[in-house]
């Protein structure tokens, strides 16, 4: 049973991690918490549904196409919610993302209807070993999400373009002075954020189905992950996501299956009080 729980919690955790990474990227780039992050997960799932079930694309193609479409969604999202408000107070952007969150759900309802939809898994069937029997999709989720995280991490940390994005996030003023096109950099960051979150949605959609409300709970839990992991830290988001996945699943099994959300958020508050900088803290100490 424990092994079963570990795999399930890892799969959930890594998806929380993807969404959490999405949060962190936007936070670092523009200093705003995106309240519509969970809805980007939902959008990814609907895009995946359209590509695989309606258009009948083969899985690998669908995966790439979904990534591309979500990146585009991210850019549009950037220009609708953030860009017009970049000069004003961050609260206004937050409100704008709340508005976007409502609108995204309703767009999904109007386009795809209110009924939940099911999506074929990438590898159908059930994996059985030892005392564990679990859908292959759980394992596929872990593998693809981890690979995606690795890729994004590599892109950000090791490549020139990633450095440009990071530089813009760390000091927009200096970035502007040395000639970085800040609009391009911030919209690219939004694109990556939407992309990884959307792929997260695509990965879990065969497991948990596609519905307009599917983003709510993962969105909030990923947010908890961001805080537990350390606000503003990409590795923190990943670790935080897995920690939340484990807390979520194991508290459901061993403490209370109905209070598991409450327990996750209690951990969030405790984490804040005990270690506000999170597990990973801010790599950049104080920007003096």
């Amino acid at each position, binding site marked *: *049973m424990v092994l*079963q*729980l570990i795999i*399930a*919690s890892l799969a*959930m955790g890594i998806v929380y991690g993807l969404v959490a990474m999405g949060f962190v990227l936007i936070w670092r780039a523009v200093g705003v918490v995106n309240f519509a992050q969970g809805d980007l997960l939902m959008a990814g799932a609907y895009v995946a549904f359209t590509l695989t079930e309606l258009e009948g694309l083969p899985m690998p193609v669908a995966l790439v196409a979904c990534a591309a479409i979500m990146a585009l969604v991210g850019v549009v999202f950037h220009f609708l919610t953030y860009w017009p408000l970049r000069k004003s107070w961050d609260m206004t952007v937050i409100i704008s993302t709340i508005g976007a969150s409502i609108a995204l759900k*309703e767009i999904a*309802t*109007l*386009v795809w*209807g*209110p*009924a*939940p*939809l*099911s999506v074929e898994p990438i590898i159908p069937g*059930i994996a*059985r070993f030892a005392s564990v*029997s*679990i*859908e292959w999709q759980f394992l596929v989720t872990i593998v693809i999400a981890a690979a995606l995280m690795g890729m994004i991490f590599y892109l950000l940390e090791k490549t020139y373009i990633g450095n440009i994005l990071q530089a813009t996030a760390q000091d927009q003023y200096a970035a502007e002075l040395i000639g970085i096109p800040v609009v391009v950099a911030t919209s690219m960051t939004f694109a990556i954020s939407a992309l990884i979150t959307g792929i997260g949605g695509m990965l*879990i959609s065969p*497991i*948990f*189905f596609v*519905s*307009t*409300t*599917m983003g*709510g*709970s993962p969105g909030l839990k990923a947010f908890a992950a961001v805080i537990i992991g350390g606000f503003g830290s990409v590795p923190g988001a990943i670790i935080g996501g897995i920690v939340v996945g484990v807390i*979520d*699943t*194991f508290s*459901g*099994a*061993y403490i209370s*299956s*109905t209070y*598991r*959300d409450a327990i996750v958020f209690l951990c969030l508050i405790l984490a804040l009080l005990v270690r506000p900088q999170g597990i990973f803290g801010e790599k950049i100490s104080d920007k003096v």
Partner: protein
Amino acid sequence: MKKMSFRKILSVSAVAVLGCFLSAGTANAQELKIGVVTTLTGEKALTGVYSRNGIMLALEEINGKGGVNGKKISVMIEDDGGNDAGAVNAFNKVLSLGADVVIGPIYSTMDLSMSPSIKKAEIPTLVIGSSNDIAKQKNPWMFQTRTADAVSAAAIANYAAKKLGLKKVAILHDTDNFASGAAEVATKTLEDLKVPPILVEKYNTGDKDMTPQLAKIRASGADGILAWSQLVEAGLIMKQIQSMDIKVPVVGSNSYVTKIALDLAKDNAEGVYSVADYVYSNPAPWTAQFAANYKAKYKLESEFNSAMNYDAVYVIADAFKRAGTNDKKAMRDALAAVKEVVGVSTTYTFDANNVGGTSVAIVQVRKGVPQIIESVRGR
């Protein structure tokens, strides 16, 4: 789909506006106006669309045949936004539009929150929620058309223990009003049958990952699972039970044999038992005709929300026929006297507590289609 719904909106609002005009113009037109409170927006919007479909179909049929005693029936549909306060708002809205009778939402908590207003307004209201608490309100103006959970939950428990011979039953249920109430009844019934459940597990509406609960159920060695859920979760649970290799009979609530849940669960639903107010595959002529008409009109399978609301309109029509007037008091009395009205989901007879539904069916999914095994008469 988009276009369709927009046209529907136009037609609905046209009817509503027309209704207003008529009521203003001819005070004693004696036409019956049904106010409908249902969920069209927000997280629970799914049910509202089905409800509206069912109502509009019934309306078309009745008015197509010249109405009741030559008098037409009209509806006005208001959105409750899926929450308690919204339900009361929408209820008051249809009142202000001059409704003679109201049909309430499927969610019991919303019905319960409307109850005081119903009593105050003294307007006969048919609510679709199935919670046992509705009858406990003893609200003379509130009618629970649907068979109460007390009946269906007992039916599930009895079937599991007596017919399936299960000895170690695990219960899995949503923590919402309907499911937790039903689970209580089932537990009680099983205890009375001397096979108390060995495990009761819960989850919150909207939870997706049932691994912890199911892992515990599997570890407990249960020989059967009784489950009460909403639509999406029903699909999820059937799927996750299979993927975790739990090979025991599952007896679920109504949601488990809805087309939506079956579509979601696909093969995983095979063999699942359920108690149902309504299944689209019911061969009874009246039901089959409804299912076919519904499918022809909306291009999708009907499910119990549509059926319950469809029936509600017919129950109202029956009462209206006997009352002969849209007077609220007369309508109330006529509704209370509804007896053996055969609907697509059950036969309606309102008892002393204004509970109308009398029977449920035990169903099993065979080759992807729910088949009725037996009918259980509640009273």
